[in-house]
Every structure is written in C-alpha cells, then in structure tokens.
C-alpha cells in the first residue's frame, strides 16, 4: 500500500488569483483537517497553506476515496472557479508524494529557488496537525515520520548545498522596486497593513535606505502598536487607515484577511486629498489585501507575490547548478523513508515468527526434560542456550531476507508467504505497532532500521 497521497495547487499550476481561493487560515485548516480525519476514510492529514501553494497530505495513500475526500476539501474551499478546480490541482501518490514533500521542504519546488521560508511553513503545517493537545493528532505515525524526515532533508539541503545562497528575498526586491520608482527613498512615508513577518523584513530593508516615517495599521491595535514600537513607527487604528493612506508613498499589505481590505472605491476616496504622487503597493497577502483594480489607478504601482518574484535573480543560475546535488539528498531521504515504511509492516511478522518458533522450542524442551529427568541443572541450561542459539541461527537468514524484501517494495508479498509457510496467526500489521520515530528496534535479536530524522 502507498504511504501517502498529496493533492494540491501551487504557483506552477495556478496564478495568484486562483491560489488565493484555496488559501486556508490556521483555524480553517485545523477545522477542515479534523472533519476530514473523523468523517472519511482519511486516517492522517496535514494541510500546507502558503503564498505559493496549498497542499493536503493524506494517509493512506493511493486510495481513491481518500484522494477524492482531499480534493473535495480543496475544491469546496475554492468555491466556483471557471472551468472547475480540477484543472489547477495536482495529485501525487506513494513515492512521488514523498519526494514531492522533500522537494518542497528543500525549496526545490519554490517560486524563489532555495528560499528558506518554506521550511518554517512546513514545520508550522506539521505542528498544526499534531501540536494541539486539546484535539487528537491529525498527523499519525506515517505523516509524523514523513514531515520530521522532510524537515531534516530540507535542513540538510540548505546546509550542505548553496541552493539558498543569495536567494532574492521579497525585502530586497521591494527595495529595488521602490528605488526604481522613487530614486532615493529618503523622506518617503511607508504604511504597513497587517503585522506579518515579511512586511516587517521589508520595512527594515527600506529603513536602511532612509524612509521618513512608518505607520502600522492592524485589526488588532495592540499588535500594530507592538510592531510600530519595534520599527520606530506609530500605530493607527484600522478605521483610520484611509487617512494614513492619503500621505503614503509605499504601502505594504500582508494581513490574513479573507477579503480585500483596500477596494478601488475606498482607495479613490482615501487618495482624494493626496498630492497625486506615485504610490508603490506591495500586496504580500494570500488572499490579496488590495483589489487588482487599484493597480489601474493613475500613478499606482501594485505588485502581488507572483509579480515580485519575476524580478531578476542574479544568483539563480548558481543556485540552479546545485539542484542535482539537492536532488540526491531528496532521493536518499525518500529511499530511507520508503524503506522504513516497507519494514514497519515486517516488524510484527518477525515478532510473530520469533514467538511462534520460540513457543515450539519451549514446548519441545519441556517434553525433552520429562523424558530426561536425570539431566543436571547445569546441562539443562546448556541445552536451553543451545536451543536458543539454534533458533536464532535458523531465523536469521529468513528475517534478513524479509527485511530486505520489504525495503525493496516486496514487503506484502513476503509477509504473506512467511505467514502462510509458518502458519502465523493474526499477525498484527497495524501501524500503531510501528517503531517510534527516531528509534531502532530489535526484534528477537534482529535489528529493524528506522529512517533518519536528523542530518546524521
């Protein structure tokens, strides 16, 4: 059986105006995942929702019902889309889904090749699915293992290859855009809408170029005040935002609002009294905070996340050269995970096999001692030890072959054969008996490998 499936939409399959319709807030994600795990055949689920992608990882993989349930969740979120949502969705099963997540975590599938932000986003998605103590974990042993391993792979890709070196950040692109419009940024007025980290980074970069004043507006005034204090600006209440907009040269919007906060009518009204100079708007939010029609207004330069990544990336060529090296790491981690997944079904079989023949050994010894009552305690111990040694020798090769076969994807076939040949009853293959992440397990003197979860 395939370990996992992924259904999703990304910058490779859909433009920002479509992607924003698939976007989930953390609260929405938690609610949807809970419903999915309790109300369908889905056993485990993790939802990754970023600016560039929305992906739903589900277990068991390769199951049509599970995949359809996942697709339904995404399609319902997107609502009515011209031509249907399926044209934008991709689906990967089994090995392909595993490799996909490793590539995503490593930044190989990102709009900006090698960008580091995705690592944190993958971690957040994983924690959301397993980190709330008030609810049952939505990521079970398989997705737990997969995401732990993916984060480890992503970290290793960034630490051992130059894929992330000099990646164009949104902040650097924003500064370049601002310079190309205003020339010098000295004396320019900046407003942040929302209190996101990316907006904060952009402002820090702009501040180094001498912006005059900073205004922060957020639905939660306390958060706006806190950010304003940190960036030496001042906070305004959300309903005062239009007044501040009239004096703004650069607007950075990055709220989590589900609908645009700056509409064309509102914008026109807000800018009525302004000098009519250029206004640069960086809409970093998904869904977007600023109506696209605002960009058609005179002297307004509106850029969303997709637009910003179009800017020339000087180091792209060098980073691209490191992709094959990163792909080797992806392959290595994927192989390890799949090996773990294959062998996890073998562990209970080995345990049963061992138990089955140990029972036989003990029964035969008891029968033997009844016949040989004159044998001393010391000799009995020697025979006992010999029988154990013999059993280990006899089971060693079959166990090793079973492990290897499982690692090569023939686990189910071998398990069935072993169960049949050795007459093993009720072999427990339930995933709950899988080895705990990060541990190596020894069953009947035979070590069963678990995949790596760290750089070693």
């Amino acid at each position, binding site marked *: 059986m395939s370990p996992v499936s992924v259904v999703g939409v990304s910058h490779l399959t859909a433009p920002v105006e479509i992607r924003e319709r698939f976007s989930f807030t953390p609260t929405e994600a938690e609610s949807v995942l809970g419903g999915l795990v309790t109300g369908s055949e889905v056993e485990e689920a993790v939802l990754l929702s970023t600016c560039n992608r929305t992906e739903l990882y589900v277990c068991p993989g390769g199951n049509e019902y599970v995949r359809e349930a996942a697709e339904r969740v995404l399609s319902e979120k997107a609502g009515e889309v011209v031509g249907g949502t399926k044209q934008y969705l991709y689906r990967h099963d089994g090995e392909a889904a595993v490799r996909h997540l490793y590539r995503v975590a490593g930044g190989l599938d990102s709009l900006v090749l090698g960008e580091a932000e995705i690592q944190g986003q993958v971690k957040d998605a994983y924690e959301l699915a397993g980190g709330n103590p008030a609810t049952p974990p939505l990521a079970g042993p398989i997705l737990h293992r997969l995401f732990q391993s993916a984060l480890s792979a992503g970290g290793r890709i960034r630490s051992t290859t130059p894929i992330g070196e000099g990646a164009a950040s949104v902040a650097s692109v924003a500064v370049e*855009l601002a310079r*190309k*419009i205003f020339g010098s940024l000295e004396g320019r007025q900046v407003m942040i809408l929302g209190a996101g980290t990316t907006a904060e980074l952009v402002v820090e970069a702009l501040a180094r170029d001498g912006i005059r004043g900073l205004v922060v507006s957020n639905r939660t005034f306390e958060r706006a005040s806190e950010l304003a204090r940190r960036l030496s600006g001042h906070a305004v209440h959300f309903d005062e935002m239009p007044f501040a907009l009239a004096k703004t040269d650069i607007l950075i919007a990055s709220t989590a609002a589900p609908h645009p906060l700056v509409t064309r009518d509102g914008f026109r009204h807000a800018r009525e009294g302004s000098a009519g100079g250029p206004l640069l708007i960086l809409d970093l939010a998904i869904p977007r905070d600023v109506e696209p029609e605002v960009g058609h207004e005179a002297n307004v330069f509106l850029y969303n996340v997709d637009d910003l990544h*179009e*800017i*020339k990336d000087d180091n792209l060529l060098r980073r691209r050269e490191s992709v094959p090296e990163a792909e080797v790491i992806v392959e290595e981690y994927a192989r390890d995970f799949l090996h773990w997944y294959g062998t996890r079904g073998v562990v209970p079989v080995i345990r049963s096999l061992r138990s089955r023949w140990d029972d036989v050994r003990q029964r035969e010894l008891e029968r033997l001692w009844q016949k040989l009552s004159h044998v001393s305690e010391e000799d009995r111990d020697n025979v006992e030890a010999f029988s154990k040694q013999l059993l280990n020798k006899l089971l060693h090769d079959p166990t090793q072959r079973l492990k290897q076969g499982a690692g090569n994807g023939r686990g189910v076939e071998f398990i069935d054969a072993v169960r049949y040949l050795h007459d093993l009853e009720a072999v427990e293959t339930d995933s709950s008996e899988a080895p705990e992440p990060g541990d190596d397990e020894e069953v009947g003197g035979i070590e069963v490998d678990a995949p790596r979860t760290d750089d070693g």
Partner: protein
Amino acid sequence: MTHAVALLFYIGSLILWFRSLLSGGRGRGPGIAFGLAAAGVAVHIVALARFTAEYGQLPLNGLAPSLSTVALVIGIGLVATLGLGEGRRVGIVLIPVVILLEVVAVSLGIRPAPDPLDFQGAWFAFHVTLAFVGLGGLAVAFASGLLYLVQLHELNTKRMGRLFQFTPPLATLDRLVRTGLVAGFITFTLALALGWLWTASFRQSFDQSNPKVLWAIMSWFIFVVALGVRAGGGVKERRSALASVVGFSVIVISYLGLRLVSSGGGFFL
C-alpha cells in the same frame, strides 16, 4: 582628425552603454561609458576651438559646423548629469544622437561657410548659442522622457528584466525631463528674443516666410506644450515625458522636411 578622435570616444561609449544594458547596468560599465562620453566631449571642444582659431569664426554658421556644435551641446548636456547617479544612463539615448549629428557634420566637411553673414559678432553668437542650448535641453528631455516611458512600461508590465535594471528611476528621469525642458525653454526663448531684437534693429521687418523663423517659432511652442502638460491632475510626469519625446521628434522631422523643401537654405542651422 580631432573630430574623428571625438567620434571614436563617442562610439566606444555607445558600445559600452549597450554592453551595460545587456548586463542590466551592473558593474562599472555605465561609469566607464560615461567617462568615454566625457572624454569625447573634451576632444570635441578642442576640435571646435581649433576650428575657431583656424578660421577666425565660431562654428555657428554653415550646416556642418552648426551640427557639430549642436552635437557638442548635447554632449555637454550629458556631462551635466554627472551628479545624478543612474540618471547618467540617459547617455544611451543621447550618445547615438551626438554620433549621428557628428557623423553627418564630418561627412559634409566641417569648414567655414563660404558666405559669412554680415551680422556675425557677439549678438549673433549669443542668439545661435542660446538656440543650440535650448535644443540641447530638449534633447536631454527627449532622452530622459524616452527612458521614463520605457521604465514605466517595465514597471507596469512587471517584467523587471535587464532593461528594468538598467533604466534609471522614474523620479530621476522626471527631474531630468523637467530640468531639460525648463533650461531649454528659457534659453530658447532668450534666443528668439535676441533674434527678434536683431531683426527689429537691422532689418525693420520680420521675414515670416523664412523657414528658419517658422521652425524656431514652432519649436518654441513645442517647449510651451511640453511644459504646459505638467499642469493639472493625473500622471503629469508621463504626459511631460511623452510630450518631450513627441516634441523633439517633431522638431527633428520638421527640420529635415524644411531642409528638403528649402533649396536655398544652406545657412539653415
């Protein structure tokens, strides 16, 4: 020979400007291109000074000397952008204009006019020099306006490639457009006023059929329109840039047209 050396510097500068464009303006290319253009201007000044010394007249009369002087004025206009950082990159548009004018002048032969005008002197020199400076100002406005429209297009289409990287900021270009137009308008107006005063003093009548006069008046109105469009709401910077580009083009095309239809206009420019 000196003109040829100046041309070589200009051509070298042009090659470097285009190489810089291909690299998105990175590195020292734009600086070296500007330096070569400045060297060309210096040699050009020497060449026209030698002309003045050799023939005892300023290079303001006759087609070839006049074209060479206009080219020099435009070159000086470029050198004047020295302190404007990326604004110096208007050289990529101005240098081809300079080269074109200088090539035509050298091809025609930079010699003194066979029939020196009787009104040569300080009066005439001021009139012509101011007119040339006015045209130089409009040329700078044209180059800056053209790059403004290019940069605006890049920003609006969100392509942000090498052209975007190379082209100066909108604000810098708008400042150059405004400066070129204002400086050009003032000097050109003074030139026309001096011309009118000279006519009133020496000829008592204004020759309205003279193509040079018509062309000069039309050029002055183009300045007025290009500056006038900056008034009012909307994107005045874009309007001004567009007016500068169209205005300069109209002046050049109308000049060529008048040259063709005016058989006896050897003195024209």
